[in-house]
């Protein structure tokens, strides 16, 4: 279970107060809200990239509020993928495993497993510069999934994709959620994505989060 209790985030003039959110295990949570309401800020706070001034963030039984991003075990797929420009696709995927000193053969096995799941076996030796939007999203997903995170945060992963690719990645996200059994927090504007993917849907209203049904 992921629990966000009474969290406050302040940055310049922007301010979020009394943010509460509880995600049950193995859920695919959708967080919706208008542009500029603080969805990305909240995800960055969950990942440890933005400090919170009050409240707590629990992953399972662990309070990670003051943990550094590298100690949280949260996978993060930002908007427009943000791949490492100087690494090949296979190096990007195994990055988190190299950091964790996983033996080479196990790393290769995990990369192959994810390449098959995400359909990127044919681009493993390529650099990100020549990849299409859909391929980049698949690589970013594989990179975030490699270390089996407790929570996978997806920041508008389908926003910049054409209709066909969007539908392919939507199917892929369903498969990834099923096979990897990972908790997902997916940010979007799109009610269609919420209906297709979400097992639980939240809406941000006046910088507060409320559970909703579509």
């Amino acid at each position, binding site marked *: 279970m992921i629990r966000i209790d009474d969290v406050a985030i*302040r*940055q310049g003039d922007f301010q979020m107060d009394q943010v509460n959110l509880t995600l049950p295990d193995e859920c695919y949570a959708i967080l919706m809200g208008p542009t500029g309401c603080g969805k990305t800020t909240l995800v960055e706070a969950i*990942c440890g990239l933005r400090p919170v001034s009050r409240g707590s963030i629990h992953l399972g039984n662990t309070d990670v509020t003051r943990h550094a*991003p*590298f100690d949280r075990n949260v996978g993060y797929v*930002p908007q427009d993928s943000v791949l*490492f420009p100087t690494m090949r696709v296979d190096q990007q995927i195994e*990055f988190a495993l190299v*950091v964790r000193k996983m033996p080479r053969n196990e790393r290769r096995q995990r990369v192959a497993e994810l390449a098959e799941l995400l359909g990127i076996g044919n681009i493993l030796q390529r650099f990100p510069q020549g990849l299409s939007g859909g391929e980049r999203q698949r690589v970013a997903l594989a990179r975030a999934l490699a270390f089996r995170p407790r929570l996978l945060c997806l920041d508008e992963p389908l926003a910049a994709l054409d209709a066909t690719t969007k539908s392919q990645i939507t199917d892929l996200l369903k498969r990834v959620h099923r096979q990897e059994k990972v908790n997902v927090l997916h940010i979007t504007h799109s009610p269609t994505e919420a209906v297709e993917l979400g097992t639980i849907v939240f809406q941000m209203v006046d910088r507060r989060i409320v559970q909703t049904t579509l």
Partner: protein
Amino acid sequence: MANEPVELRSSIGRRTSWLFWTSMSGLGGLYLALIVLLVVVDFQYASLSDIRTSLADERVIFSICLSLITCTLAAIFSIWVAVPTGYVLARLGRDAIERHLGQKPGLNRLARFLRQSVDTILDIPIVLPPLVVGISLLVLFQTSVGRSMDQATQSFFSWIGFPGIRGITYEIPAIVLAQFTVAAAFAIRTMRNTFEQIDDRPELVALTLGARRFRVFHRVALPQAWPGAVAAFTLAWARSLGEFGPILIFAGTARMKTEVLSTTVYLNFQFGNLRGAVVASLILISVAVIVLIATRLLLLGGPTGGRR
């Protein structure tokens, strides 16, 4: 007639385009012509036999070798300082201060003030007249701290088998230190600009993947900054080669001891040997061009700048 699109007259478009590129390149072209002219008149003033005679002179060979060694050392030290400093300045900019200290207005203001002060201090060697840098270094090494550093340097060089180098002031280390003091400021500015142009989001993603700051810097940020580091190195090297004022004051111009190419030009000119000064200048230009082209080709893997 009323619904017909208004066509652009293509001959006007072509003419405007030609005018645009000509006027835009005009001023740059004039500057290019000035540089070429300067080199050409130097070559016309001194004959090839003058250059050959100079290159047979052991004092000139000594100053070429000493220039190459000291410039390379100063550039290495500069880049060694510039890479981490440039990274810190770029990443601890206004946004980062806002992100981490946004909730504490007092600390936020203090951090921004400190950041601006550090920026200004690091730019001092760029704006100071070179002679002032030399005089300040000389004064520094008159203090007790400076004298201890002088003694420590002498002991170090004796220990590694160079007893001839007796400290820093008026010795070869003074040349390197004088060159480094100015060149590092330029290298830091280049590296700061380089890191500022590199998106920091991949580094944030790397943190969420479990990497610590050192690994993120080494594996994600630094490989992207490689072309900028080469630019900073070559700039530091070139600045060091052209450095004269601080060397004159802090290292002196002792023949076969602390004489580098820029001081050779000065010494020849000072003693009324204009032809010798021009020949030394031509050697200086040739060495600079050869080394800078070789560095770019070697480090970036091609004239276009490798990965760029």
